[in-house]
């Protein structure tokens, strides 16, 4: 599966789509190539709960405060739901 560290909802959506349905900007090697990989953002609950707390605290906690974590999670979830 693919784990994302993108900083905003829009780039999260673009990356998520690129590794599932294919590059939505039709610009690169994955244009029209549907890899269909499961994709998650590291700040999603589904991931967070599995990461060792001290590792999450060191690497993610600060960014979770700074980034729009909810919007990002929603964007990636929407791509997963769309691709089934």
């Amino acid at each position, binding site marked *: 599966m693919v784990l994302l560290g993108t*900083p*905003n909802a*829009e*780039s999260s959506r*673009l990356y998520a789509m690129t590794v599932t349905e294919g590059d939505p*900007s039709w*610009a690169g090697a994955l244009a029209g190539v549907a890899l269909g990989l499961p994709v998650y953002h590291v700040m999603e609950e589904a991931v967070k709960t599995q990461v060792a707390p001290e590792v999450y605290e*060191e*690497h*993610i*906690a*600060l*960014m979770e*405060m*700074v*980034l729009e974590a909810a919007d990002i999670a929603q964007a990636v979830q929407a791509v997963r739901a769309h691709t089934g």
Partner: protein
Amino acid sequence: MTQTLEQPVIRGVRFFLAHTPGLVRYGSKPSRDIARDATIADAIAAHLRSYEAAVAYPPNRAFLGHIHPDTLAAMPQPWFTSAAPGTRWGAHGEIMPEEEFYGILKICDAFDLVHLEAGFVEEARAALSPHPLLTPVDLERLGTGFSEADIVTQYRGSLPALPLYLRNGRLIGCMQAAHEEDASLAADVLLENLTCKASAMMAMRTLLVQEQLDPLALPYMLNSGEEAVGDRYQRGGGNLAKAVAEMCGCQAATGVDIKGFCCGPVHALTVAGSLVSARVFSQVAVVGGCALAKLGMKYRGHLQCDQPILEDVLAAVAVVVSADDGVSPRLRLDALGRHTVAAGSSQKAIFEHLVSQPLERLGLHFTDVDKYATELHNPEVTEPAGSGNVPQLNYRVIAGLAAMRKEITPAQVPAFVATHGMPGFAPTQGHIASAVPFLGHAVDGLRDGSLQRVMLLAKGSLFLGRMTQMADGMSLLLERNAAGSREEKRQ
């Protein structure tokens, strides 16, 4: 026996912008896309700004010192709709039109690689003659040029050359390759390197003249850009610094290049300060030329939003670090922030190394720094392309770290960002956009007392070169000079 160290100061800083819509097609992203689909060139051409629009553009005006970056926050966005006209020269430098900059390229051309059309040469000569920073010797280097037919033959010939155009599509010359096979001497590489030399030269000449610094008194110049000057046996040989020193009349100087991706300039300032502090040299210049490859980098986002292509300017900087003069802002070499090898790559670790540790060393709080100058990329360039607001993100991380350390409350984060940060305003010219765009305003504020402390933070994406997974970062603290010069005594 005690050793005395000199206190280094930022003696002066100036910038240079060249408005080069005709060169946008040779930015890395546009050139690759045009090679796949020639119609993209037309789409780009239809979205190029006029010189007047680039002059009036508020972020460019902030870059050149006409306005303070903080004033951008209150201006209605998008900033490119601002109707107020601008002027060529700001307090910290000029914005030059492309018709003149092509002439500057020729003036800097030591190998007759820039071939300009004869009529255009005369137009450039007339336009450049009144320039306060150019001499008759410079103008002689423009030569006489070639016929248009010759230019066309040359760029279609066996030795690949790049045709050079103005925004309106007029062909005004071509850039030769220096070798048939050597990829490091291809026309596009040479064009990139020559624009670095030319833009850095203009920034440095501006600084020397406007701050009344004697070029003959400068012993050493550091260039901090990301270009690669060399040939196939030594692709990054470098020392563009010395080429710039030559063009600035610094006859007593030699130089060297400091390479650190976008962190180069801050590393170079640290080295410059250290050389002055140790009394190796009385003063050291730090220059950074432009990033041609980054022209039009985000053009797709701009086209999608049907807005002007904003990455149409080449930017350069020049700084002189000298011994304490009693008035110029001091570099606190005892409070450097370094992203070390062991630090790891979490944002928390990076900013602890760059911000928390140097402040702790001086017994200061995050709020004791009046302004942090991080990566100052103009969000109007990056947001349409989905790359977010880089300065705002950096300021939020600094504020978030301050909140984690309980120096401010989470509720105070937005106010911290507004007060201690600033809107991004720099062109996305790589190393030029990293911290140093604020240096002109910082020096002004630290001299007039409106600022007490400014921290410059820069980061470098070393991983892009595929030699390491690491990033890099460096921070420098500047502070207002106490009246009168001092020397630090060290046992």
